[in-house]
């Protein structure tokens, strides 16, 4: 196996579904090269359902370089957490061919 595994960050964001289009725009603006969304529901400390078809959330995952992950978390903390039901976390993961997601070769 010649492809070494490169370290990356996986940022996962759970938010009200109505926010999805703006959220993925924010993700791309922070420097991501892609994202994956999936349907979710849940309960949090606010417990608000903001639309009639309440309780429906969206889960956005993006594989980004560490710097972009920090940028994204900072944007979320500043612009999104105060207003919306949003939860986000960062995990360290390994990928093959990290360049694809914006990783520098010797990070």
């Amino acid at each position: 196996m010649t492809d070494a595994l490169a370290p990356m960050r996986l940022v996962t964001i759970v938010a009200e579904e109505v926010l999805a289009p703006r959220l993925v725009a924010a993700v791309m603006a922070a420097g991501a090269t892609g994202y994956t969304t999936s349907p979710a529901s849940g309960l949090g400390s606010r417990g608000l359902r903001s639309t009639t078809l309440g309780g429906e959330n969206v889960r956005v995952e993006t594989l980004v370089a560490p710097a972009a992950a920090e940028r994204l978390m900072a944007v979320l903390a500043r612009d999104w957490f105060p207003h919306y039901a949003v939860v986000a976390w960062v995990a360290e993961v390994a990928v093959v061919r990290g360049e694809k997601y914006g990783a520098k070769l010797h990070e």
Partner: protein
Amino acid sequence: MDFLALAKANLLSPLLLCFALGAVATLVRSDLRFPEPVFNGLSIYLMLSIGLRGGVELGTGEIAHVVGPAGAALALGVAIPLWSYALLRWMRFGVADAAALAAHYGSVSAVTFVAVLAYLDGAGIAYEGFVPALLALMEVPAIVVALVLANMGGAGGAKGAGGGGSMGQALRDAVTGKSVLLLTGGLVIGWLAGPAGYAPVKPVFGDLYRGLLCLFLLELGLLAAARLRDFRRVGAALGAFALVMPVLHAAVGVALARAVGMGVGGAVVLATLAASASYIAAPAAIRLALPQANPSYYLTASLAMTFPFNLVAGIPLYAAMAQWWYS
């Protein structure tokens, strides 16, 4: 039939009883849930069906007659949020919450609209074929007016998260929103296709809509009752607003309808549109553009109070009001 007989027939119609069944299911904590994709599919069907049948009717009538009623509908869509906002501010609601509620009460509920048509059909009262156009016209303006009010009051949306320009964005979203699109699209299709083109699709768009509406109301009953649990968060003042304002708006609607020359059936429809509050389009728009507003207020008021009130008592009342005014 007299008023009481009609009110009773309304109460015992499968439509209302299905709504009640949904509410009961939530209250006894049943595991009954309507699958969301099916609910979304039904919404698309209902909107298209309303538009299509209206469009076919439109083609057989005189289109010039629509101008006055359209103006009346637009006037209601602009005026209702203005006075609702003023009243709610006076009731000590914050800028964002007052604007959010104003948007909901100025906009309209498609299911309430369909329910009033079913009521009129049952009572044998005729109405103008173009009324679906009024429904389409009244969905958006109130949302725009309310957002302008919020901006003027200093509650200007979540600038950062939206990337700026949330007002213009909200307007764009509302106009290209699926309900406006399906209603107007359906009207145009029905008008172009005419009765001959409509005939082969009538088994779906004509014959099924009353029954499918029952399933829709079952789900709305589930959702409305779930909202009722938020009632303590909402308070009696908002409860009074949610039950009194529809009647006032209906009265204005009847008066305007008569002024622009609509028949008594059309007056009942316009009154009901004025009285109804949006619970699908407006919440989504407001949540994005005015995140500071508390969804418990606007959703509980529109979905759990005004909507059932209109279904149960409002529609027969507005019909009686219109008949009294026109006689």
